[in-house]
C-alpha cells in the first residue's frame, strides 16, 4: 500500500478526528505552550487542562516526583477559572485547527452543571470531558468517579444543560470499572475516557516523611500502561460507547494495544513532557504499521484483540 493511503480517521459518537491520537488533559496546557516543538495541527485533537468555575491556586509544593518508569503528581487542579479560560485561552485554541476537548472539574454537581452551561455558549469546543477522577483535590473530583450513583447523577445533570458531546473520564481507583462506565452511559455520556492517574505515594527515608506535600498523588507514565490497558479491555467488553484510552502511552506499540483492546482513540499524557514530539511519531508509526499489515482503515483495528479470545 502506498504511503498516506491508510485512513486514520476515527469517529467518536459523531466527532470526527483526523487520526486517533489526542493530547491528554493536564499534559498539553492550553494548546499553545508546545507550539514551538510540536506540530499541533497534526494531532487528532487536544484536551485542555482541567477547568473549574473559580480560579484555583492548586496544592502546595512539592507537587511532583519521579518513580520507577513513572511520576506522581498532586497539582490540585491549579487553573485560572472558566471566565479567564474563555476570555484568554479559547481564542488561541480556536486557531489550532484541531478539535478542542475541554476538561472540567467541580466540587459539586452544581459546579459541573454551571461549567457545562457556560461552555455550551462558547464557540469552538468539540466536546466536554467531565473529570470525575482527579485524585488530588479534597472535594469532588474522584469522589464522584468512584461511586456509580454519583457518576450517573452528575452526568445526567450535565446532560440536561448541554448539547455538547460528553466524555466521562473514569478513575482507575475502583474495583469494577465496567459498572462505573455503565453508570456514566446511563447518565447520558456519549464517550468514555480512561484512565486518570492511579493513587500512589513515595516516602523520603532520610527525612522520614512523604515526598509530596499532598502526601498522595496520581501515578502516570509507562509504569501504569498495563493496568490502563486491562481497564480499557474490561470496559470495552461491558459497554457499547466509544472509548478514549490512555495511561502510559509512549509509542505506537502502546497506542495500538489500546486500540486493539477497544479504544477508538487514545491520548498521550506524561510522554509529552519527556518527548514533546512523541505524538507525531505515534501517528506516523501507526500509519506505517497499518501499511505493513495491509490495514486500510485504523478504525478496523478497534477492539481487534477481542475477536481472538
Amino acid at each position, binding site marked *: 500500500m502506498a504511503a498516506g493511503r491508510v485512513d486514520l480517521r476515527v469517529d467518536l459518537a459523531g466527532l470526527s478526528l483526523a487520526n486517533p491520537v489526542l493530547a491528554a488533559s*493536564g*499534559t*498539553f*496546557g492550553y494548546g499553545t*505552550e*508546545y507550539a*514551538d*516543538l510540536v506540530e499541533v495541527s497534526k494531532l487528532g485533537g487536544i484536551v485542555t*487542562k482541567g477547568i473549574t468555575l473559580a*480560579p484555583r*491556586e*492548586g496544592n*502546595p*509544593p*512539592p*507537587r*511532583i*516526583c*519521579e518513580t*520507577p*518508569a*513513572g*511520576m506522581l*503528581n498532586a*497539582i490540585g487542579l*491549579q487553573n*485560572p*477559572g472558566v471566565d479567564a479560560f474563555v476570555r484568554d485561552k479559547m481564542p488561541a485554541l480556536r486557531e489550532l485547527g484541531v478539535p478542542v476537548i475541554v476538561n472540567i472539574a467541580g466540587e459539586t454537581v452544581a459546579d459541573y452543571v454551571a461549567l457545562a452551561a457556560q461552555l455550551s455558549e462558547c464557540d469552538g469546543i468539540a466536546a466536554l470531558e467531565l473529570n470525575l477522577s482527579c485524585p488530588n483535590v479534597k472535594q469532588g473530583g474522584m469522589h464522584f468517579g468512584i461511586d456509580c450513583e454519583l457518576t450517573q447523577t452528575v452526568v445526567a445533570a450535565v446532560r440536561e444543560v448541554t448539547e455538547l458531546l460528553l466524555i466521562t473520564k473514569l478513575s482507575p481507583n475502583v474495583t469494577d470499572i465496567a459498572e462505573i462506565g455503565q453508570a456514566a452511559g446511563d447518565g447520558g455520556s456519549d464517550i468514555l475516557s480512561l484512565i486518570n492517574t492511579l493513587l500512589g505515594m513515595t516516602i523520603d527515608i532520610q*527525612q522520614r516523611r512523604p515526598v509530596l*506535600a499532598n502526601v498522595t498523588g496520581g501515578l502516570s*507514565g*509507562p509504569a501504569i500502561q498495563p493496568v490502563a490497558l486491562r481497564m480499557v479491555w474490561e470496559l470495552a467488553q461491558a459497554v457499547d460507547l466509544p472509548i478514549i484510552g490512555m495511561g502510559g502511552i*509512549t509509542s505506537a506499540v502502546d497506542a495500538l494495544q489500546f486500540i486493539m483492546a477497544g479504544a477508538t482513540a487514545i491520548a498521550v499524557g*506524561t*510522554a*509529552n*513532557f*519527556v*518527548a*514533546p*514530539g512523541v505524538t507525531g511519531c505515534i501517528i506516523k508509526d501507526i500509519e506505517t504499521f497499518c501499511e505493513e499489515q495491509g490495514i486500510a482503515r485504523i478504525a478496523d483495528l478497534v477492539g481487534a484483540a477481542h475477536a481472538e479470545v
Partner: protein
Amino acid sequence: MYARTTRLTHREQVGPDCHLLEFDCPEIAGSARPGQFVHVRLTGGFDPLLRRPFSVMNINPAQGSFQVLVRTVGRGTMLLAQSEPGSEFHIIGPLGNGFALPGPPGEVVLVAGGVGVAPLIFLAAALHQPDNYRYVRALFGAAIGGDLCSWLELSLVCDEFTAVTEDGSAGEQGMVTDFLPAQLDRGAGCVYACGPTAMLAEVAEQCRRGSVPCFVSLEQWMGCGVGVCLGCVIPTRAAGAEHYQRVCKDGPIFDAAVIDWEAMRRGCGPG
C-alpha cells in the same frame, strides 16, 4: 526554545562529585542568556522518565557549544557523569526567564553556594560585557575546598573574589552568608544568589534588612520544563492565582522579595 539532539563533546571531573559537561548545539549556544537552563533527556527510553534541568554555565557561540556543571546527587546525574564524550542527548533549551540585565545600577555582589555557581559564572561574564558593565564582587561558599568547583572560572570574570569553606580547608572559614554583611555595608546595587534554599533564605533576609535588591535562582523538581504541567511551583507572597509560580517559566530567577521564605524553609522541594 529549541529541541535538539546534541553531542556531548567534553567531560571533565572538576570536583569530588562534580563534572563539567560540554554539548554541541549552535542554537542553544547562540541564544542562551545568563540564568536560563536546559532540560536534558537522560536516555532514549523512558526510565528514568523525566528530563533533568541544568543551568547554563557558559556559552561559546563561535564554537556552537555550551557548558553545564553537574553535581552527582542521584541516578540521573550519575548517568550524565558516566557518559562518554560522543554520546548523544536530546536537549530542550534555553528555558526560563534568565536574569534581567544589566539590572539595578551600582556594584554587584554574587553569592554562590556549591554547584549554584554555574549560572553566576555566566552572569558575571555578561556583567563584564561593555553593554552591561558592572563592578562584580563574588562570594563562593562550599562545605570543603574540593567542592568549590569551577572557582577559577568565577574568579576570572569577577573584580573581587572571596572563597569560603565550612571547614576552612580553602579560603575563609565559615558560612558564605557570614561574609555578606560586610559586602552590603560597603554598598551594593544588587545581589544575585544561587545555592541551597537555607543559604538563599538568609541572603534574602539580609538584603531585605539592607534594602538591597536581590535576585535568586530557585530549583524545583520539574516535569515538562516549559510551563505546562504546573509541577515545579514555589510559594510566593502574592495571594490568589499568583501565589504559586512556576520555576521553569516564571523563574528560575525570582525577585527575592516576592518569595514566601517561611514556606521555603519548611521544605517545598529539593534542598
